[in-house]
């Protein structure tokens, strides 16, 4: 509006008519020489140009991925189309059998069970961790006496090597061990659950190990999230007549959604890799009741030497996981985008 009439330009500032104006990219290409600087400064000055500078960290990182992960991915795919076992000569000589390994994998009940079981573990352990972590974080929310001690202690488990956790629990969970002792005292009668060798209890032990250790992380994430909640909307809700529960449900929880999302994503992505606890606590047993994907694939590859089958299973697993990854990332993106939008005005 009002552009019909532009103010007169100061003399000398007027651009020649028809001059399209040089693009600044052209301008940058002509490097400015600055006498009196050493060549190091020269190099640094070049690196400092935004279009160079911003790529600097990407060179090593993308290089690492390209050299480390990419060849592996390709190799994995290639191996899955062969029928190679370690016991059958060199892999490059192995016969090409197309989709056989994949069909075999899909027909392998034990594999399917391991997949289901792993997702099952995650489906039990992750919500438990989230609920516990969240509950504890809520309890530790406002200042009170002893809060620092609690927080410190609650964070301890995640600083312990999972292998140590596995080992430690294997000691606590034995038949005549301290855990059953405590349970017996609480129950008032002898409790002799075979935590490591009962079909169901062993699953609980593995889940318990995961929950014991990683509730610390969800706790931390939620404490972090709660501490960062904006005060005013909550106060507004209070004045509007909401009680604690309503505030929690209608205000705080929705505001925490992004944090909950990241906690869910982080924990479930780690839980799907679960390997250490079953390996250390039960060796996948009793029966196969705690054999997770990772444990089974470990066996498949290194004990049964069936590399191509393992590769095919890995790829199937990847497809399954990428559905999950896809959803997880969509959720995260949505939450972050929304946050960015809210931060804008």
């Amino acid at each position: 509006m009002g552009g019909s009439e532009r103010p007169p330009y100061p003399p000398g500032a007027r651009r020649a008519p028809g001059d399209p104006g040089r693009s600044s990219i052209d301008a940058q290409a002509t490097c400015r020489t600055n006498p009196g600087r050493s060549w190091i400064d020269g190099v640094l000055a070049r690196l400092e140009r935004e279009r160079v500078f911003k790529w600097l960290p990407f060179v090593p990182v993308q290089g690492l991925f390209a050299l480390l992960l990419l060849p592996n991915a390709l190799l994995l795919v290639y191996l899955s189309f062969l029928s190679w076992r370690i016991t059958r000569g060199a892999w490059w000589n192995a016969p090409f059998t197309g989709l056989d390994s994949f069909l075999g994998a899909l027909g392998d009940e034990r594999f399917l069970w391991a997949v289901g079981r792993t997702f099952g573990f995650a489906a039990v352990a992750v919500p438990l961790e989230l609920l516990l972590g969240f509950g504890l974080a809520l309890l530790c929310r406002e200042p009170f006496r002893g809060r620092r001690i609690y927080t410190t202690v609650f964070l301890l488990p995640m600083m312990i090597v999972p292998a140590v956790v596995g080992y430690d629990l294997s000691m606590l969970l034995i038949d005549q061990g301290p855990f059953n002792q405590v349970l017996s005292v609480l129950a008032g009668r002898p409790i002799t659950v075979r935590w490591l060798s009962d079909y169901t209890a062993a699953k609980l032990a593995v889940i318990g190990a995961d929950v014991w250790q990683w509730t610390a992380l969800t706790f931390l994430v939620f404490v972090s999230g709660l501490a960062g909640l904006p005060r005013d909307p909550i106060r507004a809700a209070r004045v509007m007549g909401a009680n604690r529960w309503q505030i929690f449900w209608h205000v705080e929880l929705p505001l925490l959604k992004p944090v909950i999302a990241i906690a869910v994503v982080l924990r479930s992505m780690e839980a799907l890799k679960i390997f250490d606890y079953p390996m250390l606590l039960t060796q996948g047993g009793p029966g196969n009741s705690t054999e997770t994907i990772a444990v089974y694939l470990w066996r498949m590859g290194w004990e049964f030497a069936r590399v191509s089958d393992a590769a095919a299973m890995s790829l199937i697993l990847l497809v399954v996981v990428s559905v999950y990854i896809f959803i997880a990332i969509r959720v995260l993106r949505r939450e972050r985008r929304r946050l960015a939008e809210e931060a804008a005005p």
Partner: protein
Amino acid sequence: MAAVRLEGLTKLFASTRAVDAIDLAVPDGEFVVLVGPSGCGKTTTLNMIAGLETPTAGDIWIGEARVTDWEPRDRNLGMVFQSLALFPHLSVFDNIAFPLRIKKVPEADVAARVQAVAETTRIAPLLRKRPATLSGGEAQRVALARTIVVKPAVFLMDEPLSSLDAKLRVEMRTELKRLHAQLSATFIYVTHDQAEAMTMADRIVVMHQGRIHQMGPPLQIYADPANRFVAGFFGVPAMNFLDGEVVAEGSDLRFSAAGLRPKLPAPRTATRGPTTLGVRPEHVRLGDGADASPATVSLIEPLGDETLVFLDYGAPVSLVAKVDAEDKVAVGDRRPFTLRPDRLIFFDSAGGRLR
């Protein structure tokens, strides 16, 4: 509907006396503005009224009830926050519906009432939007709508306009005044902006360091400040303060400071000796006269309709005069000036008003 009364209200944070035994009675339907510099305890006072902070001592009455230890939700208040505190995850509609739903109003009524209030506040077209996509003024209206919708008897507002830009602030304060007229509810409004206080208040309460320094209608506070703090706080640019002393010169009393000795109006009972004279820029008149003092223009600030002229008259601090924009003044001009004798006020060295 509901008067609000504070009795000896006090709040201590550790050793800070955030609010120091204040007494205040706000009659039903009044628009009271609490004003004062940052940190003077306005927000704390408001929060105590709302029930968001527990008083260390004192009582709060709303209507007939002593609500000091009631939960906020039982007090039937509306509150607007500086940050607006819209719920970012809810649409405008849901934001406004929130207090209704909390109160379990039937969903059909909710829609009707939200619609109605949205129309009053002129945000009906925005109901589907998210708070993040609103402009400052729109968000402000939503915050108001959300407060109005439950028809509280008392409105508390904590610097609700301070996040808006100057232009919008001016518009919104008119709207708020209109709203107050419509609702005939009690408004307690907090700001540190004296212009807002002046333009909106039925009565202004000036706070400083946790205490009330003056209460009264805006023009009274402007024209007749209780002490130097209040005098300095109101008015842009601020009142000029000149340190000097009152001396007798024959039958006249004169104020003597640096290069000037204005005559004082006759019936002054104030003691002689060191005093501070206060005079507002609009009461400094350029132009020769009987009692004029000489000065040089050191700086001018055109405001458009008026111009601020900074006068060097020998003291370290310039005297500011507000003159009509059509009065052509240039830096370096020698311009004598006079002070409007009927508008001079005096303070003792502790800042207390001398009458």
